[in-house]
């Protein structure tokens, strides 16, 4: 724990220092110091070995410092490049380390960098220049997270050497569901303005929810992803019910709000009862249960 906290603070301190942009420090000195630090981290990781936590933290440090190096490069040579290029370059450069380190924290850092890169690409280039709809961005992010999740569930170290932390699974399940839910909710709320890509994303959401539910109920029993999927399903279903009732009766009908409130209580209660029954089933009386 102290190792993680200490390393995180030292890395943050280095980041703050280079953001300070000390004028008296020459550009070659700046770049040299960071590159030297990256090399030292990698050498230390090699020395400690990747089965050791300290070795993994050194790889994580080298990966973060690579981003600092690119940022300082952009600070020194004002190339006018868009910010997404920094993140995409960073993601590509550290991808190898991410794969070999088998370190959940590093995977999360990498996914955060990849996500930021794609989101910035859409904001800076995709939307303004190519008019790419946001649904494609959501689909892309869900596919990336889904691929890592599939590697996590199926790979077991052979195809993609992933760590086996359950919190990483829970985060990945959320990261698949959230981007797919946005177009699905939009499809319900703005039904009159439906576009093909919105239907495509909503279909992907439906397939993911059904497939995910079956997988975490039967193949890899785990209640937390099931609860996330059910919660997500409730949100979509209740949006549909609420929209239907309020659109039919109008917003000035007090009774409609009461009915919607009762529907919320009913649907969520049913979901809770369903989850409790599932958790009491034989499949969950094993390692997969986590209350």
């Amino acid at each position, binding site marked *: 724990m102290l190792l*993680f906290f200490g390393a*995180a603070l030292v890395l943050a301190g280095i980041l703050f220092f280079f953001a300070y942009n000390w004028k008296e420090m020459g550009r070659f000195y700046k770049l040299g110091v960071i590159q030297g630090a990256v090399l030292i981290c990698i050498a230390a990781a090699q020395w400690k070995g990747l089965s050791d936590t300290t070795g993994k933290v050194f790889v994580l440090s080298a990966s973060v410092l690579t981003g600092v190096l690119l940022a300082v490069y952009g600070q020194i040579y004002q190339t006018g490049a868009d910010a997404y290029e920094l993140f995409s370059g960073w993601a590509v450069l550290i991808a190898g380390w991410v794969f070999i380190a088998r370190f959940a924290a590093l995977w999360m850092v990498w996914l955060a960098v990849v996500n930021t890169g794609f989101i910035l690409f859409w904001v800076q280039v995709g939307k303004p220049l190519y008019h790419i709809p946001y649904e494609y961005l959501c689909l892309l992010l869900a596919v990336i997270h889904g691929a890592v999740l599939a590697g996590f569930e199926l790979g077991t170290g052979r195809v993609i050497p992933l760590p086996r932390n359950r919190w990483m699974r829970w985060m990945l399940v959320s990261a698949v569901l959230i981007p797919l839910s946005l177009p699905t909710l939009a499809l319900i709320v703005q039904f009159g303005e439906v576009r093909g890509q919105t239907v495509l994303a909503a279909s992907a959401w439906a397939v993911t929810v059904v497939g995910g539910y079956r997988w975490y109920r039967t193949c890899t029993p785990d209640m937390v992803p099931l609860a996330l999927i059910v919660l997500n399903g409730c949100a979509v279903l209740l949006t549909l019910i609420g929209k239907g009732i309020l659109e039919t009766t109008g917003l000035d009908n*007090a009774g409609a709000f009461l009915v919607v409130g009762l529907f919320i209580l009913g649907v969520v209660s049913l979901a809770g009862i369903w989850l409790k029954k599932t958790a009491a089933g034989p499949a969950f009386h094993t390692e997969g249960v986590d209350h």
Partner: protein
Amino acid sequence: MKSNPLTIEDVLTHSRVRPLLAEGDVDRILDHLRVANASEKEPVYIRILVGIGAWFAALCLILFLAVASLIDSGAGAVLWGGVMLGAAVVPGRWRRGIFVSQLSLAMAIAGNLLVLFGFAEYSGFDEIGVIVFAHAVITLLMYPLYSNSTYRFLSPTALAALVVFWIVDARVSVWFHGLAAAEIVLVGTLFLSRRRMPALEPLAYSAALMLPVVLLILNLSQAHLWRTDFNEPLWPSNLILALGLIILYLYLAGVHHLRDSWMILAVTATLLLGVFTTPGILVAVGLLVMGYAFGDRVLSAFAFLFLPLFLVVFYYALNIDLAYKSAVVAGSGVLLLLVRKIAGWCRPDSAEKSADPFVSGKRDT
């Protein structure tokens, strides 16, 4: 041979197991199990699901009353709010099934919000102090009467949040330290209590959540977000936190270890951190130590969640230059790494005990 099934207490007090445990471990494990057994049986994910559902249902209830023109005045809102709070207490005491508990929670949330709205209207929406006072009274009344753990967590959390708004609104930023001190005392008293009542569990987690939130907002006040010049010094909170951490170490290890080299190291490092670091780092370390000592994942998660938030907020604080911030943050990190290294030399067995949540995914409690 014993005819009854073995209990955990039998195992822990067995002559072969007893020497393996440190002094106080048996009591601590039994207390932990007692609290866990006495708390609600619903899994956390169902409580979260029910809480979210109840929140939205409460909004629908309020909209129903508003559209039906039943709460067209502050007095009407207080009246309906009081009725709903009372109605929440009755089914809440039955604790029969998810639907009833969710309905009672929705009524409690809606009733609470309506009473606060009523008092806010009465004061012309100018006096946050009136709302704080009203919510404090509701919390004091409802906490013992209404046994829903989600409400017992949300209500004190909202009270602390309202006090923060009050401090910001009244521009008396020195009270941030007072609020942080109150939260530290609450966290310390509740988590370190040997015979903690299960009913106080939600209050303990609420205080553990709001302590870093209060300090985060104290740090945010340095970022000139509200276009006010707080410039409140951070050292009082640092001092309180450092003292709190030292008391925590003494509690966990026992006063008789005060002269041990590793205890001197921990106390010295904490005092050093108290002198030069930001309160956010100290509180994250404190939560981390407590989370590890009590095997409490929630406290550890708070620590890991708030540390990056503090760093981001600290980065944007305008009253300190980046070079100084860099020295503070990196210096704190180096100090923690040094403590880890030296502690390893002082206690060779400590390395084996270290838990790594990122690698193992499970931890020893």
